[in-house]
């Protein structure tokens, strides 16, 4: 008897905590659809009268579709390239070994504990000097440099568990090293690629600091930076701010609801191997 009442309390607490995790997302929806006066007087009830007026402001001021495109492009570029360069490097390190490659491996891993803040100021200067400011090439290069340590670490660990026989067979058949890598090895690394891609896609998609620093022009900005500017411009004018937040959060929420198993698996695999 006492045991089951305890269980009920635990269950209730678990669901209360779940509500606390969901409520802010519901609040975004409610607040974005309310008129300004309704939001001021009834900040946390559902909207009585639905209005879409704030979306107009948000879409226009944030150049929403442009920024969405920028964010997608930047994420796709960074994730695509990191899987290629990190898998290639991880492959060589895992297969070659020896003092040289092991040393390189440690050299790359050292990047895991260097905070971005330590590179930030000279990097900013460098990006300006190379005329890479306001270019996707510049930001993508910065992302790649930051994502290399973890991605390479993950690929190297994975390659070590992939048997060599298939590669050797390909070499005997006369395939060159690059061919062997592209057509035999890379496909075998698919699970690792999935994890590296999911994890890094989150990092790039949600990142605030790099685009803030390296893409100052309006036409190049990503969604998160647009929101940052929007909040500055519409200071304390919460209705349009919530419409803007909704436009950023809800597309991702829908992706999460459909792909959550895959996403959670990718993220845990990354941490467990690490």
């Amino acid at each position, binding site marked *: 008897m006492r045991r089951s009442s305890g269980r009920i309390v635990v269950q209730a607490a*678990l669901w209360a905590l779940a509500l606390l995790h969901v409520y802010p*997302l519901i609040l975004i929806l409610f607040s974005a659809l309310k008129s300004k006066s309704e939001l001021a007087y009834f900040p946390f009830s559902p909207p009585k009268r639905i209005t879409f007026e704030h979306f107009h402001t948000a879409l226009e001021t944030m150049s929403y579709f442009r920024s969405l495109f920028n964010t997608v492009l930047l994420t796709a570029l960074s994730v695509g390239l990191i899987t290629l*360069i990190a898998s290639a*490097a991880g492959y060589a390190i895992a297969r070659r070994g020896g003092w040289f490659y092991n040393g390189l491996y440690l050299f790359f891993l050292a990047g895991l*504990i260097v*905070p971005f803040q*330590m590179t930030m*100021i000279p990097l900013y200067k460098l990006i300006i000097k190379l005329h890479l400011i306001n270019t996707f090439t510049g930001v993508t290069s910065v992302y790649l440099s930051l994502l290399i340590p973890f991605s390479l670490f993950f690929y190297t660990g994975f390659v070590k568990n992939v048997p060599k026989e298939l590669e050797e067979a390909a070499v005997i058949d006369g395939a060159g090293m690059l061919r062997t890598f592209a057509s035999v090895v890379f496909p075998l690394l698919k699970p690792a690629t999935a994890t590296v891609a999911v994890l890094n896609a989150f990092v790039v998609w949600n990142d605030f600091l790099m685009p803030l620093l390296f893409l100052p022009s309006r036409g190049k900005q990503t969604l998160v930076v647009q929101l940052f500017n929007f909040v500055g411009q519409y200071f304390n004018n919460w209705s349009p*701010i919530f419409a803007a937040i909704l436009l950023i*959060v809800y597309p991702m929420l829908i992706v999460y609801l459909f792909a959550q198993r895959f996403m959670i698996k990718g993220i845990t695999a990354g941490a467990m191997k690490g």
Partner: protein
Amino acid sequence: MRYHTVIRLKWFLFVVPALLIYLVFFIVPSASSAFYSLTDWDGISYRFVGMENYIKMFQDDKIALAFRNTLFYAVGITILQNVSGLAMALLLDRKGRGVSALRMFYFMPAVFSPLVLGYVWGFMLEPNIGAVNSLLGALHLPSLQLDWLGNPAYGKWMIVLITVWQFLGYTMVIYLAGLQGIPAELYEAGDIDGAGRLSRFRHVTFPLIAPSFTINILLTTIGCLKLFDQIFAMTRGGPGYATQSVATMIYTIGFGPGGKWGYGTAVSIVLFLFILILTVFQVTILRKREVEM
């Protein structure tokens, strides 16, 4: 060329793209930070000033406060997030439709940008119209209606709690993965020995999730030492400098008015040393625990 040299070069080519990008955009700027930290660099010209920046830093109350705050965030978030994440994992380490829904809800905030969710919480914690104070008013608890973000004593705690709120699901799934790797026979053996719940946790579960424990502690600590977005969204380091972390402080020094880049790089070097020492310390302790079990 000798055949072996060609093969060697070909292998090396696989590493070249990663190595080049890493060197140019990561290693060179990091190393320059060490160099510029000894100068009065303002972005255009510089001259050597020796250890002046470091000496100035140790007399700078704002920097000392930023380091104290960072330590507060790191310790607070690491402890709370791991305790709650592990508790949730233990409670949800079973099957059932309710269980997977709960896991999905807890994890949900972790997929969004901390800046964006920081704004939502900024609204909820707003003292006059925010949901939190409205709720407290409705519960007839006006004495608890506080200025959650405007008062630095609460503001710092809010930054801790909201970060924990956002990422406890992440910590939880890593612990869950660890728990699911424990073979059932070990628990059965414990049952035969008549182990109670608590001793079962102490002697079976906890030692066996040591790898998840290590990775979670390291991930949260390293993440917290670089805490930036949450603070930027909720308090902007204010009021004054009261809630600044080292990361937001370096940004303020480097890209705020004045542009004291030499000084900023010196602070970043100290942050790096701080992280380095803490990581080495943690890895040593945590690995030892993994081996002993």
